[in-house]
């Protein structure tokens, strides 16, 4: 009797095992994802102090994330609950609202240290777990910076890419009209990446063009006509201290800082026509990069510092060229259309962004340097001066809106587009800063 039982056990075990092995497990392959923005709920941060907080922290954060085009913040009036701590979080509430992420936090002011302490936590709603959390603090003036820091942290935790919400933009404004001969006022402005907290670095009645950030984000180089002719200056942002670096006879233009911060590529015509030179800022020594009777200008550096791209019309009309700084042999890169100019590298060195004319209108185009594939990114007719955010995800450029010059920001995936507000008239020549420490 016992023997039979044992036998049946063995037999059934064997059968079970063999039956398991004979079934092949189904494998479903997913290669595409959703094109829509990630739904995220940013709950208004709890105010743990007596008085009001001068800045609306979660409005800054949801503004940042929404403008990136990659997030879709949930409107506050649709939230079923407003948790302020992890234990008050009911994941079911947020699953019902189809949110993927939940951000909660609190702000507290201390009279003794005169500083604000902000604490935040980010949760993955579907996996029902906390992803990141942190406590940061700073004075009233840094409230916006703290908020942008939280935006950066959330952005990087979800997308894997470093956020650029704590960066700045430089641009030029013009009040008055040159044609109407009214009193003209040009300003060189620097603002946060969201356009707020702008301040003036330079104010003149003559044009200012081509602002360029130093790689450490502490200085700007630009061309100013204040002396009656174009000359290149560098200015320390914090102190405002200015240095005249180039005022040769003829043109002084298109300054571009090298990635190590020690040299400027610039355009001079002192030797007869517009050519590109390299100026060593410490020794003031000039090295000539181009030799051609055509116009060579608008040089900018590759992120590895070994080559420059520039505009040259040596073929009959402006096109984009590249040359490495050791053999100085130019190589033409653009062959579509008869006007391609002002090239800029992406931070990863894989793509170029430049101005391209097609069907009479001037748009921003991008080219993949590995494949040579070129696509046009914008559609408005008079687009100029493209500048990439240092995480390569956003592009700012100048365009016309109505009869005014404005700045437009688009996400590189095309999902988001917005215009930057300007306090002073016509806006042009934007330059996005590098990551700032």
């Amino acid at each position, binding site marked *: 009797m016992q023997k039979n039982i044992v036998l049946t056990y063995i037999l059934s075990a064997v059968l079970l095992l063999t039956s398991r092995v004979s079934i092949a497990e189904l494998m479903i392959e997913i290669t595409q994802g959703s094109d829509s923005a990630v739904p995220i709920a940013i709950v208004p941060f709890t105010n743990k102090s007596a008085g009001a907080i001068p800045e609306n922290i979660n409005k800054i954060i949801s503004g940042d994330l929404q403008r990136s085009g990659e997030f879709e913040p949930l409107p506050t009036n649709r939230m079923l609950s407003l948790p302020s701590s992890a234990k008050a979080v009911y994941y079911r509430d947020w699953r019902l609202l189809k949110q993927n992420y939940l951000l909660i936090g609190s702000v507290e002011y201390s009279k003794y240290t005169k500083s604000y302490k902000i604490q935040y936590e980010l949760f993955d709603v579907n996996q029902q777990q906390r992803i990141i959390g942190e406590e940061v603090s700073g004075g009233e003036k840094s409230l916006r910076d703290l908020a942008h820091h939280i935006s950066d942290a959330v952005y990087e935790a979800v997308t894997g890419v470093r956020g650029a919400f704590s960066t700045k933009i430089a641009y030029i404004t013009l009040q008055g009209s*040159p044609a109407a001969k009214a009193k003209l006022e040009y300003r060189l402005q620097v603002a946060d990446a969201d356009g707020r907290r702008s301040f003036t670095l330079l104010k003149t009645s003559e044009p200012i063009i081509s602002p360029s950030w130093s790689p450490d984000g502490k200085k700007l180089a630009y061309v100013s006509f204040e002396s009656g002719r174009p000359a290149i200056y560098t200015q320390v942002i914090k102190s405002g201290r200015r240095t005249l670096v180039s005022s040769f006879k003829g043109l002084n233009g298109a300054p571009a800082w090298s990635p190590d911060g020690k040299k400027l590529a610039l355009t001079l015509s002192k030797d007869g026509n517009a050519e590109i030179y390299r100026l060593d800022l410490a020794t003031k020594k000039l090295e000539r990069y181009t030799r051609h009777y055509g116009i060579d200008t*608008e040089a900018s550096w590759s992120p590895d510092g070994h080559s420059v791209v520039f505009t040259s019309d040596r073929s009959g009309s402006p096109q984009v060229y590249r040359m490495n700084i050791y053999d100085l042999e130019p190589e033409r890169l653009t062959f579509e259309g008869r006007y391609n100019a002002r090239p800029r590298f992406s931070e990863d060195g894989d793509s170029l962004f430049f101005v391209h004319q097609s069907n009479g209108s001037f748009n921003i185009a991008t080219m993949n340097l590995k494949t040579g594939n070129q696509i046009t990114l914008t559609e408005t007719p008079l687009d100029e*001066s493209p500048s990439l955010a240092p995480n390569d995800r956003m592009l700012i450029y100048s365009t016309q809106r109505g009869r005014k010059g404005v700045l437009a920001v688009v996400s590189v995936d095309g999902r988001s587009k917005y215009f930057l507000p300007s306090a002073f008239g016509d806006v042009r020549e934007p330059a996005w800063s590098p990551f700032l420490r």
Partner: protein
Amino acid sequence: MKAISTKNALALIFSASILAGCASTDTTEDADTNANADANGVAVTDQAGGAEAYGQGDGANVAASELEAQKAEAKRLAKEKEAGALREIRTFYFDFDKSSVKPESRTVLMAHAAFLAANPNVNVTLEGHSDERGTKEYNLALGERRGQSVERFLVVNGVARTQLEVVSFGEEKPATAGHDESSWAKNRRVMIQYK
């Protein structure tokens, strides 16, 4: 020349006025008397038979060479006026993305060249401009190239290089503010600024 004494002057005037009075009364009353002064103020000589004889008198006795000189002077003045009028034109226009001097600008430029060549102590600035399309720095270089194009033309026609200076403003100082073809055409220019 001896100064005429007051006495003699008075005597002259007195007799002149009498003559004038006589002349006028004679004309109205006596048709026969030939005291007519003709247009040239030539005295009429009394002739028999009632014939009127005239002498040449001391009017404008212009020589042939003088006439030629006068003609030449008039021409020169007219030319100067014309050149002056031409030189009032200080702006020259260009085609899109081009820096070559247009044929219709040549006459005016020649006038400027002639003037500057003749006045080597006069200096000018050649301001180069472009329309707003395209990129700013390239337009700055394009404006300079247009200025240099005009500079070359003037130098070839006798102007010293030291009198000329090229400055470019690219698209930064347009002549008109519109965003259409006609506005752009007005902004693509070189301007001669006399110092």
